[in-house]
């Protein structure tokens, strides 16, 4: 992946800030057509699947309560998880940041003597840039999720949490398979068409060889139960089952916030996640394993517990709720901003509303200051969230932090200057009245047919995307004074 670098431990994709990235994305009409169709389809399915359960709100409330209570005692649950996993033959590793997690995984792979690993789609390993770190150590990581395969073959970036190649149409996918599969392994069959069935068949046959031969797998985790040490991976295609079952060594990288107190808590999340994510009653495959089992599956199991900014997020009592995210992607599909810009504009593996709050917290607000502003605060994400993360609340909170962070710099920002000027103007009626007269005069000079199209100076950044109606000739205060004589 070219142009990738890590900033604050979160893979940063060399993108410009959100406003610039969004501008080019919005101009891409094919991207917008793909996104509109895809998000629209999945939105309808999600609504139907959620509506089927008349206690959906109670499930959300329980999920939010479990996550909130778990985070308040995160150390306790992690220690319990460590004890449980160790007791059933697993090995637990702790990684304070991305670099350490990458070092641990690289060391574990090297210890097996292997130079190839198969991977189940995992947000955590994208976040830390594991594939790139392994490549630097001479280890090839094969993505096995169909969409991740498309993205990897094309040297592209995922643009959606659930459907990483949502920005690609079938004809593009056929070209990617025909041109690139041969470089990575078994080539695409002759005469491959753009029928999704044939494309899936090509992926099946391309990856089957990898599954049968590869001795090491790397996965993420959707959930881990502290009381039993059970880890769960939720998927559709069966590539997860392949990776979790066939190799001899399994390395799972898991954010520390994924821990659940008990196996029984899965009853809430296994009802919410598939319905929120793909709009299905249940996803095709869920694998759960508890340590190792003789004669069935990997002989060695390593669990890497990843911090990488999560404890900093935990510290912020407003932002903390973000750690409840179960990566369902429902918030992306309902977001009017995501629907128009797609995932790449967000510049990190976590796009959409959840990315706009998660990335600045994991990487540091000062490194992603434009992201909390990549929202209209319409609140659709909050309504869709199965764990009731109040994303608009966190966005507003992070906007304040971004402004505070900017204020720490030597030069005042245009906003802070404007706010200072406003405070000064509003301080006395006389100043306001003067400013209004000046404004009315100035705007009449600038307006065309009653609309201000371009404001002067630095203000053009506001007017570039908005038409402002010219103020009326007479202000309300002047009109009041004129029509209501003093003595009345």
């Amino acid at each position, binding site marked *: 992946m070219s142009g990738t670098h890590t900033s604050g431990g979160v893979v940063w994709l060399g993108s410009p800030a959100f406003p610039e990235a969004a501008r080019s994305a919005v101009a891409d009409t094919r991207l917008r057509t*793909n996104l509109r*169709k*895809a998000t629209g389809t999945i939105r309808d399915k999600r609504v139907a699947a959620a509506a089927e*359960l*008349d*206690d959906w709100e*109670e*499930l959300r409330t*329980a999920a939010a309560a*479990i996550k909130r*209570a778990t985070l*308040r*005692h*995160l*150390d*306790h649950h*992690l220690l319990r998880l460590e004890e449980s996993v160790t007791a059933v033959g697993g090995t637990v590793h*702790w990684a*304070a940041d991305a670099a350490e997690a990458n070092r641990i995984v690289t060391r574990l792979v090297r210890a097996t003597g292997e130079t190839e690993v198969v991977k189940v789609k995992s947000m955590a390993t994208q976040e830390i840039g594991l594939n790139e770190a392994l490549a630097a150590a001479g280890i090839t990581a094969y993505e*096995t999720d*169909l*969409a991740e395969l*498309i993205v990897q073959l094309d040297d592209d970036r995922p643009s959606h949490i659930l*459907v990483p190649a949502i920005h690609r*149409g*079938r004809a593009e996918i056929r070209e990617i398979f025909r041109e690139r599969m041969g470089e990575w392994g078994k080539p695409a069959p002759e005469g491959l068409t753009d029928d*999704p069935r044939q494309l*899936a*068949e090509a992926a*099946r046959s391309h990856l089957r060889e990898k599954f*049968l031969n590869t001795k090491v797998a790397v996965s993420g985790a959707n959930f881990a*139960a502290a009381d039993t040490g059970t880890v769960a991976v939720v998927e*559709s*295609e*069966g*590539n997860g*089952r*392949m990776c979790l*079952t066939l190799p001899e060594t399994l390395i799972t990288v898991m954010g*520390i916030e994924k821990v659940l107190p008990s196996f*029984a808590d899965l009853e809430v999340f*296994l009802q919410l996640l598939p319905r929120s994510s793909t709009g*299905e009653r*249940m*996803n*095709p*495959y*869920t*694998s759960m*394993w*508890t340590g190792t*089992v003789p*004669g*069935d*599956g990997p002989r060695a199991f390593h669990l890497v*517990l990843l*911090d990488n900014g999560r*404890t*900093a997020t*935990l510290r912020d009592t407003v932002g903390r709720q973000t750690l409840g995210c179960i990566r369902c992607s429902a918030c992306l599909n309902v977001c009017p901003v995501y629907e128009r810009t797609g995932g790449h504009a967000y510049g990190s593996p976590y796009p959409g509303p959840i990315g706009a709050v998660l990335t600045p917290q994991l990487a540091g607000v000062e490194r992603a200051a434009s992201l909390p502003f990549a929202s209209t605060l319409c609140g659709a994400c909050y309504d869709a969230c199965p764990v009731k993360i109040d994303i608009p609340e966190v966005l507003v909170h992070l906007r304040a932090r971004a402004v505070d962070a900017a204020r720490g710099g030597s030069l005042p920002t245009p906003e802070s200057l404007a706010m200072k000027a406003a405070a000064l103007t509003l301080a006395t009626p006389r100043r306001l009245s003067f400013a209004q007269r000046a404004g009315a005069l100035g705007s009449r000079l600038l307006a065309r047919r009653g609309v201000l199209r371009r404001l002067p100076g630095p203000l053009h950044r506001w007017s570039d995307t908005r038409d402002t109606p010219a103020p009326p000739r007479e202000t309300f205060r002047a009109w009041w004074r004129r029509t209501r004589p003093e003595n009345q």
Partner: protein
Amino acid sequence: MTTSRETILARIGSALTDVPKTERYDAAAISRDYRASHAGGHDVTALFAERAADYRATVTRTVHAPTAIAAALAERVPASLIIPDGFPAQWLPDEGGPRRLADRPPLSVRELDAAAGVLTTCAVAIAVTGTLVLDAGPGQGRRALSLLPDYHLCVVRAAQIAEDVPEALRRLNPRRPLTFISGPSATSDIELERVEGVHGPRTLDIVIVEPTTPAPGEAA
């Protein structure tokens, strides 16, 4: 030297200064007002059959397992069929049909990949979601058996069908490797068009075996 384990635990401790020192995690304090089941009084066997069929699995209800299994095999004609240890002998059709393979000694992954089909039991099924759960118990074998062959025929006893997810989890033993299967392997990664069959079995047949007369207290 401070380990990362200590570092992370210390960071968590200092991040949670708003949590009173005396507060303990209390699972009982979490409101769980959601339903224990969404089966809504429906007949669970009928509900499971309907919901599993929604995923385009083929579902047959029978009182005589060998007949239904033979019929499914006659329809699919797999060249070979893995039969894991502990599969009930009385459910097997008479000889004939596909070549039968035992996983004893364990088949190599190449042999599993070359096998056309697998016949298993399950541990639990879930009516509301149309899900099968395998736990590598008798008649199911290790996880790879139901993964590599392209055809999976799974036999469910009616008594094994739980109403909904909470009941199913209570019936399961987390120490065993668990695989939840809801229809054949599928992807919607290309323009969100659902395609059955990527890496797992592309064809899933389910046979539900019902008692000839209601047998109260029959163990699952």
